[in-house]
C-alpha cells in the first residue's frame, strides 16, 4: 500500500519495507519455545533420546504449511479466524470451535503459570507467592495498556532458549546419530509415548498460533502484492523456532537421557544447561522460563477473549470500559484466575501439567485445522489465493496424522497397554 506512494524503490527501501513486515512469523516462532514448549522438549529428549528428532522435522513442515495458510487468510480477507468461521459456518460450528479454542488456550495458560511456578521455585521462592504476584502483574500491565514497554524485556529473557543451541555444541553429541534419528521415523503404540508425540505436536502447531498469525497479518494490512515477504517471514520463523526446539531435544538427550535422568521437574530440566554455565544453569533456565511464561500469559488470555468475543459479536478490546465489555473482561480475568487456581492446587506436578496441556492442544487442533482448510479452499473467501494441491495434500496429511495418533491413544488401552501416569 505504502509502495503506491513511495515512487522510487531502492534496495534500502526494500529492506525497510521488509523490516516493517517482519515480525509475526519470527515472534510466533519464539513462542514455540515458551514454558510448556521447553518442558515438552526437555521431557521428550530426556525420556526418548534423539528418537523425537524425526518428529520435529515433520512438525516443522507442518507448522510452515499451517502458519502460511493462516497468514494468507489474514492477508486476503483482512479478517480474524473466528470472524471467518462465524461468517462461513454459522453459530453452531462457531460455538464448538470456540469451545475447543477456549479449552486449548486455558490449558496453555495454566501451563504458562506452571512455568512461572516451576521457574521461581527453582530459585527457592514459593509458588504461593510468585504465581498470584505474576497474575496480578500480568493483568495490571495489560489492562493499564503499558504492556508494550515490558514486552521487550520479556522477549530478551526469551533469548535464554538460545543457550540450548550453545550447550548442544559444547556437549558434543554424536552428530551421526542425531542425523540418523532426524530422518528415521520410529513409533511405539505405548500411551506414554503417544502422549509425548501429541505434546510435541501440540506445543508447536497450536490453535492460538493460527488465530494469532491470521490476526496479526490482517492487522498489519499486508498488501497482497507484498504477500511474498510475509510468506518468507512466516516460513523462516517457523523453521527457526523448530531449529531451537530440535536443539533442546539434542541437548537434553545428550546430557540427561544418556545419564538416565528423566525430566520430571524444573530442577532436572535445568541440569541440561549445566555443561555450558555450570551452577548458573538454574538462573539461565529460570530466566528463559519466566520470560516466555509471562509473555505468553499476558497475551494468551487476551487473544482468546478477543477471538471468542469477535465470533459472537460481543464488545471487545481494551478500549471499552469494564461495564460495556463484561464478557470480554470476564473471560480474560476468568482464564487467569482459573489458571492460577489450578497451579496452586496442593501437590499438583508442574512439569507433567505443562506438557500434558500441550497434548490436549494437539487433540483439539484438528477441529480448527479442518475449518481453516475448508475456508482456505473456498474460492468465495480466498479468490485465486486458495491452497495448491501440494499444500492441501500436506495440510490434510498433517490433520489426518494428528487424528490418527489421537485415535491410537484412545484404542491402545484395549490392547493391554497401560495408560500413562
Amino acid at each position: 500500500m505504502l509502495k503506491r506512494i513511495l515512487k522510487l524503490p531502492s534496495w534500502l527501501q526494500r529492506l525497510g519495507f521488509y523490516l516493517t513486515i517482519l515480525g509475526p512469523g519470527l515472534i510466533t516462532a519464539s513462542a514455540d519455545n515458551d514454558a510448556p514448549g521447553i518442558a515438552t522438549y526437555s521431557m521428550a529428549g530426556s525420556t526418548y533420546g534423539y528418537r523425537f528428532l524425526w518428529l520435529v522435522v515433520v512438525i516443522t513442515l507442518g507448522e510452515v504449511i499451517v502458519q502460511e495458510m493462516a497468514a494468507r487468510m489474514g492477508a486476503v480477507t483482512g479478517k480474524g479466524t473466528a470472524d471467518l468461521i462465524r461468517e462461513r459456518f454459522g453459530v453452531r460450528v462457531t460455538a464448538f470451535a470456540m469451545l475447543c479454542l477456549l479449552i486449548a488456550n486455558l490449558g496453555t495458560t495454566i501451563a504458562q503459570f506452571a512455568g512461572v511456578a516451576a521457574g521461581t521455585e527453582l530459585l527457592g521462592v514459593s509458588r504461593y507467592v510468585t504465581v498470584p504476584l505474576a497474575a496480578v502483574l500480568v493483568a495490571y500491565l495489560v489492562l493499564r495498556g503499558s504492556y508494550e514497554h515490558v514486552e521487550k524485556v520479556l522477549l530478551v529473557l526469551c533469548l535464554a532458549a538460545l543457550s540450548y543451541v550453545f550447550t548442544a555444541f559444547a556437549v558434543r553429541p554424536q552428530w551421526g546419530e542425531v542425523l540418523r534419528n532426524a530422518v528415521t521415523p520410529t513409533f511405539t503404540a505405548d500411551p506414554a509415548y503417544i502422549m509425548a508425540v501429541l505434546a510435541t505436536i501440540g506445543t508447536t502447531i497450536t490453535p492460538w498460533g493460527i488465530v494469532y498469525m491470521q490476526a496479526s497479518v490482517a492487522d498489519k494490512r499486508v498488501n497482497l502484492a507484498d504477500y511474498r515477504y510475509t510468506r518468507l517471514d512466516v516460513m523462516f520463523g517457523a523453521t527457526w523456532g523448530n531449529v531451537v526446539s530440535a536443539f533442546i531435544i539434542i541437548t537434553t538427550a545428550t546430557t540427561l537421557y544418556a545419564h538416565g535422568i528423566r525430566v520430571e521437574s524444573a530442577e532436572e530440566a535445568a541440569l541440561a544447561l549445566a555443561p555450558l554455565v555450570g551452577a548458573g544453569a538454574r538462573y539461565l533456565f529460570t530466566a528463559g522460563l519466566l520470560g516466555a511464561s509471562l509473555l505468553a500469559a499476558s497475551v494468551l488470555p487476551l487473544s482468546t477473549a478477543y477471538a471468542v468475543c469477535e465470533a459472537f459479536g460481543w464488545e471487545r478490546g481494551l478500549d471499552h470500559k469494564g461495564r460495556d465489555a463484561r464478557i470480554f473482561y470476564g473471560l480474560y480475568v476468568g482464564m487467569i484466575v482459573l489458571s492460577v487456581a489450578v497451579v496452586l492446587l496442593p501437590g499438583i506436578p508442574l512439569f507433567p501439567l505443562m506438557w500434558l496441556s500441550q497434548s490436549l492442544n494437539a487433540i483439539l487442533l484438528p477441529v480448527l485445522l479442518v475449518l481453516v482448510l475448508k475456508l482456505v479452499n473456498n474460492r468465495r473467501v480466498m479468490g485465486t489465493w486458495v491452497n495448491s494441491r501440494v499444500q492441501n495434500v500436506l495440510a490434510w496429511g498433517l490433520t489426518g496424522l494428528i487424528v490418527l495418533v489421537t485415535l491410537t491413544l484412545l484404542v491402545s488401552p484395549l490392547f493391554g497397554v497401560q495408560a500413562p501416569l
Partner: protein
Amino acid sequence: MLYASQLQGQQVWDAWGRPVGRCADVLVGNIDQQFPPLRALALRDGEDAERFIPAGCISSLYPSITLSVTQDKRKPYTPKGDEMWLFDRVLDRQIVDTEGRRVVRVNDLQMARVGEQFCLTGVDVGSTGLLRRLGLEQIGQAVARRLHRSWESHVIPWEDVAPLQHEDPLRLRVSHERITRLPPADIAAILNDLDRPTGEALLHSFSDEDLADALEESPAEVQVAMLSSLTPERAADVLEEMDPDEAADLLADLPEKTSAQLLDLMEEADAAEVRALLAYPEDSAGGIMTTEFAHAPIGLHAGELLAYLRHSEDAREDEVMYYVYLIDDAHRLCGVISLRDLVMAPPDADLSPWVELDPVKVNSYTAQQDVAYTMAKYDLLAVPVVESETGALLGIVTVDDAIDTVLPTAWKKRLPRFF
C-alpha cells in the same frame, strides 16, 4: 415472530404437499426501505445450481414453507442483481448499528408479514438470537426464569442498521448515507472495528471532508493505514481538508519521502501551513497548535471588530472561536477578548474594559503537558502560542487538543500486539 434462521434448510412444500426442495437462501429487495420486501427464496440443488421461488407464489413461511401453487405452475424468477441474499451476505456478518453507533454481529434476522408481503423488519444482535441458532432457546429461557432474570432480546430495526460488504457497491451506498450522518469520532471508531477490505471500501465512498473529519478522530496507526489505502492525489486532497495541526501530526508519522510527496501534491497555501507546523517537535505546543484562528488589529470598536471578523478569511477558518486575538502591525499579541464580551458589548463601545491586555500565553516549544496545565489553571478554552523572541502570534491550542495530550481518548488505547 418469524426469524430467518427458522427458514434455513427448511423443506419447501407445494400446494399439494409435495416437497419442492430445501430453502438455501432468502432474497429481499429495496433494502433502502424501512421494511425490505421478500423477493424470492433460493433452493439449492447441487453445488452451484439454484432455483428460485418468487415471493408471489409463497403462501406461508412458518411453521412450514408452503407454496400457493403446485410445483409445475410455479412462476420463474430471475434475480435482477439488486437483491440482498440474507444467509449469504447478512446473517453472521458484521453490520453497523447506526443508533448505537457501533459494529455488531447479526445473530438472526427478524421477518414479519406487512400487509400482503413478507418483509425484513429487524436485525437480532442479542444473546436470544444466539441461543435460538444453537437450538437452546427453551433451555436458556428456563434457566433465566429460574434465576428470575430474562434474556433481553435485542432487535435493531432495519432502518437503523447499515449493512456493509465491500464486494457489494449497492449496499455500500445505502450504508454510506446512513453512516455519514454519525459524528466523526463514531465513524472513526466504526472504521477501526471493521475488517480491512470493508473499512477501505467504506473509506473510498466518503467525501474528502467526511474522510478528513474521521481521520482527525482516529489513532495514528489507523490514520496512516487509511491514508495509504488512498491514491496519493486523493490523500493530498484529504489532507487539505484536515486541520493543519492534525495534518502535520499525520504527515510526521509517515516516511519522509511519502510526506514530502504528499506535501508537493497539496495546494500551496495548505502545504505551507503544514510545513511550518512540521518544524516543531512532536510533544511541543507547536505540534498541537492550529494556525487557523480569529485575529484582528487592536484598537477597533466592538461593531468594527465584528464587521472585520465577518470578512476575515482566518476567522472563517476558526472552528470554535472562543476568543478573538488582537495584534499589532508586527503581528505581536497585544490582547485577547472573549467572543462573549465582544458580542455583549454595545456596537460603538471602546473595548478596552473587556480586553485582557497581558493574556496568558505559551511559546511554541512549551511542552504539551504544561500547555494543558496552564489551560486548566487559568480556565481557558484556548491559549495563544507566540514566538518566544519576537512575541509574534503563531497559533492557538484549543482545549480539545490539550485534553487529548493528558487523557487520550479511551478507545484509542489499542490492544497490545500479541507478542
